[in-house]
């Protein structure tokens, strides 16, 4: 692997909080989100199921079609005739589902028909004129309903509502429990929530009849896979489908699942022969725009009396709702943090993916790892209490120690570096933990219900994409990789294009910092094209903005392409200057000879040779200055049930929250919130800080406020931001953060993951703090969210949240 000194010619930019001047358009109202594009469009509206579970009879669109301004209509019957079903990834049972409901509806909000009209108001008017015959079936809403022997089946062909079930054992789990002095067992329930990007899904589709091809603009987050899926389902050659992804208003995983709607839009665009647009409403987003699944977890620790965790048994049942493409993923990805920050030598994990009549699920920020760490960090506190050990001491006794790095977990996850005990100690110091504990008794006497909680977590990055096939044994994707194109323009300034997309993380600035330090220029001279165009962008099946992979593979590809272009410029310079290649250095947009300072050539002159005076190029050197490179993460193992790594990099953090609970109203107020994290080398600390805090607020929303609530009929009752509560500025703590730097030996820049960590570590820290605050009442936290209503009821009656 290249050393940093080989990569960088200067060290002026990388590692510094460089302003995001590349994204200045966002501040001026000049960004180009899909809905902002100046393309005259007819508008699409989607008719959605009002039933959670029903046989679908006749869908009569004749009245709607006859309305003035209505241009075309499509129903599930046609979709099932002309497209293939949605491809599953992790499930092992057959389950056939199309992008519009066909034969059956399986959740409230499932698309039943779509209409194109001259404008969105007319399209929505026309929806009301579609007549649908439903024959309601008993809804299957909660996990335990779905598991009943006589439960109605969502997919009759599967013969069960459990579409994936697998048990993986690693290490000697029988021995661990045989030798245990104590076994601590607990069950937890995790609710449904979502990171709800502020921009909803938006798609524009245009059909070109002469070439029989489609151009689509969409805020798709994982276009590499989407393009393959869409072309396969529509049975069209890849060359007949072009996807453009301009600016996106946040993603957090939720935009990984919009591609089925691209299929609907393409089919409609072909009917009307003009560009059409669908702008998802927030209600549609909350109903059908995908959630993190709710789940039920049973967990057991085999413990020695000194607190050492000898083994862990785990059963995870995910309510994956009704989207077969992603069902099963949440179970398998938990292996990335199955043992958290602890050296637990043996594990047994049973994973079940259950389908129900709740809405679709997709990889929401952290994907299953927020649940895994929540459960583990609750368990560590519970076990510590039962053994009479201080929770800090309990963690210190079980942490993977720095001298054990790189540490391989029983299932094969490789924790590359880090000092977990020191991270905890620093966080506790920053939070004034000892002082808080010393004063807590006094505050309690004064009638204040204050508590402090901690959570030590692992934040994995760069998915090794084969992991979810582990249950199926047939990986379609493995590893992770990205592509980049770097060129030098006529004027000597670089331009960069990558195969991925930006959801708002400021990729352009970070790329410009890296390229600037590789070429010894200023970052403002680097043009970065962050809009993806599948016609020209160097994408792969892995391409997309997910799993904290940017620092690793996206920048890996940028570095490799920049190195190629730099090597070529050096060769051309050596020839032009009649200098030795080994003597050449870069400075301020010039290549000069360290042996003879009079020999210097600006990039612009090198570009002139490459683009214009090509007869003066060195023998055998190709004209032009543009290079493409693909970079694959070096550490991914092929998936196997005995030894696999779900993800490649592993940041770690400790969150400490101090709270005060109002026992009359049930409101939880923050007194302090500290995050100490280690994401390896930071390329732009200003951006990193925003990701860490923003991600933590996602977790705080999940732990205290947000929940998709379904009633027993399978109707979602939280369908706007009035009842699906998001965190606002008021009421949040002022976060204090600390950093540690343990570079990753397996990434080119020593970076690890950043972006999901806060959403993973915050849940247990807050829950542990609330339980500590309510200790005088004996209240235990076994489910989320910790709403005021649940707090008050637990204090007065149930003793369990």
């Amino acid at each position, binding site marked *: 692997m290249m050393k940093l000194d080989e990569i960088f010619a200067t060290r002026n930019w990388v590692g510094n909080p460089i302003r995001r001047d590349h994204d200045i358009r966002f501040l001026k109202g000049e960004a180009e989100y899909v809905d902002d594009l100046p393309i005259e469009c007819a508008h699409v509206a989607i008719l959605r199921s009002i039933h959670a579970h029903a046989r679908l009879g006749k869908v009569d669109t004749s009245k709607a079609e006859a309305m003035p301004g209505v241009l075309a209509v499509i129903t599930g019957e046609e979709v099932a005739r002309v497209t293939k079903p949605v491809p599953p990834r992790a499930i092992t049972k057959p389950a056939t589902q199309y992008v519009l409901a066909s034969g059956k509806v399986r959740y409230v909000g499932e698309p039943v028909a779509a209409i194109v009209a001259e404008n969105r108001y007319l399209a929505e008017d026309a929806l009301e004129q579609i007549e649908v015959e439903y024959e309601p079936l008993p809804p299957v809403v909660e996990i335990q309903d779905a598991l009943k022997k006589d439960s109605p089946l969502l997919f009759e062909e599967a013969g069960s509502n459990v579409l994936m079930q697998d048990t993986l054992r690693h290490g000697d789990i029988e021995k661990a429990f045989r030798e245990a002095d104590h076994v601590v067992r607990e069950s937890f329930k995790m609710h449904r929530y979502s990171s709800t990007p502020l921009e909803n899904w938006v798609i524009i589709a245009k059909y070109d009849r002469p070439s029989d091809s489609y151009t689509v603009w969409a805020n798709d987050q994982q276009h590499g896979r989407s393009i393959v899926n869409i072309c396969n389902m529509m049975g069209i050659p890849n060359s007949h489908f072009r996807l453009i992804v301009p600016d996106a208003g*946040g993603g957090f995983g939720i935009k990984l699942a919009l591609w089925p709607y691209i299929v609907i839009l393409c089919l409609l665009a072909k009917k009307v022969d003009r560009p059409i647009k669908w*702008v998802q409403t927030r209600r549609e987003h909350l109903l059908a725009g995908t959630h993190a699944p709710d789940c039920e977890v049973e967990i057991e620790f085999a413990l020695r009396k000194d607190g050492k965790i000898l083994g862990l048994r785990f059963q995870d049942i995910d309510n994956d709702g009704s989207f077969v493409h992603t069902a099963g993923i949440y179970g398998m990805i938990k292996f990335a943090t199955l043992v958290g920050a602890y050296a637990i030598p043996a594990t047994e994990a049973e994973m079940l993916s259950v389908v129900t009549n709740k809405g679709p699920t997709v990889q929401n920020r952290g994907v299953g790892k927020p649940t895994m760490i929540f459960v583990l960090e609750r368990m560590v506190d519970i076990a510590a209490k039962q053994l009479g050990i201080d929770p800090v001491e309990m963690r210190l006794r079980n942490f993977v120690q720095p001298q054990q790095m790189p540490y391989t977990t029983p299932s094969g996850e490789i924790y590359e570096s880090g000092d977990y005990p020191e991270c905890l100690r620093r966080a506790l110091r920053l939070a004034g933990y000892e002082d808080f504990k010393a004063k807590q008794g006094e505050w309690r006497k004064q009638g204040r219900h204050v508590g402090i909680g901690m959570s030590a977590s692992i934040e994995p990055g760069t998915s090794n994409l084969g992991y979810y096939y582990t249950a199926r044994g047939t990986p379609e994707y493995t590893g992770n990789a990205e592509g980049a194109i770097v060129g030098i323009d006529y004027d000597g300034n670089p331009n960069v294009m990558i195969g991925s997309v930006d959801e*708002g993380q400021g990729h352009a600035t970070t790329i410009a910092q890296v390229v600037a330090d590789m070429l010894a220029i200023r970052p403002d001279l680097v043009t970065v094209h962050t809009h993806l165009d599948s016609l020209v962008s160097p994408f792969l099946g892995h391409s997309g903005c997910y799993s904290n992979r940017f620092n690793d593979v996206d920048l890996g590809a940028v570095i490799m392409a920049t190195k190629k272009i730099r090597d070529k410029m050096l060769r051309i310079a050596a020839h032009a200057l009649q200098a030795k290649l080994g003597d050449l250095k870069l400075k301020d947009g010039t290549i000069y000879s360290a042996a003879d300072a009079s020999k210097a050539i600006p990039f612009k002159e090198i570009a002139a040779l490459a683009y214009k005076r090509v007869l003066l190029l060195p023998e055998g050197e190709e004209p032009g200055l543009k290079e493409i490179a693909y970079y694959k993460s070096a550490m991914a193992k092929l998936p196997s049930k005995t030894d696999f790594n779900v993800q490649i990099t592993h940041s770690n953090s400790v969150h400490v929250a101090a709270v005060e609970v109002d026992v009359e109203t049930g409101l939880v107020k923050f007194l302090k919130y500290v995050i100490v994290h280690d994401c390896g080398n930071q390329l732009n600390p200003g951006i990193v800080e925003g990701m860490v805090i923003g991600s933590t607020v996602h977790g705080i929303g999940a732990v205290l406020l947000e929940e998709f609530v379904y009633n027993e009929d399978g109707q979602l009752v939280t369908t706007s931001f009035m009842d699906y509560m998001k965190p606002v500025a008021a009421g949040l703590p002022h976060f204090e953060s600390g950093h540690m730097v343990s570079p990753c030996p397996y990434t080119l820049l020593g970076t690890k993951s950043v972006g999901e960590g806060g959403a993973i570590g915050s849940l247990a820290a807050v829950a542990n703090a609330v339980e500590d605050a309510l200790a005088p009442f004996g209240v235990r936290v076994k489910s989320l969210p910790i709403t005021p209503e649940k707090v008050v009821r637990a204090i007065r009656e149930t003793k369990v949240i």
Partner: protein
Amino acid sequence: MYPIRVTINGKEFTHEVEARLLLVHYIREKARLTGTHVGCDTGNCGACTILYHGKPIKSCLMLAVQANGAALTTIEGLATKDGLHPIQESFLDKFGFQCGYCTPGMILSAKALLEKSPDPSEEEIREALEGNLCMCTGYQQIIDAIRDAAAKRQPAGAKSK
């Protein structure tokens, strides 16, 4: 159809519009000023915040015809030929944005706040932003940016709260 005349960022627009056209759709689709965004359709998120005679409003909660005769400011009206508005500059300096979707609304809410209360405390800023959701930043760097903008507006030597 109803004729309306509105002034947006000092420029006059006249259109014939349907009575049911939302102001936000008018601004985006008729006036073609797309910096005002739609995030929730129910007035909760603040992505569509504009200034109506200088006061922040949610333009998804008003009909275009109700804005007949009004003077509106959208995000496009802040930067000048000489550069960014100082609040925009502070958002850049303090990393007060990520995906940028809430940013126009945040900046306009901040502008209205600072005109009313030139040196707000953190608490006041948090309250003033209650109608603006940001899904990316966790608000802290936005608050830093607004404090920074306030500090730079203060005469030298004035003490910040």
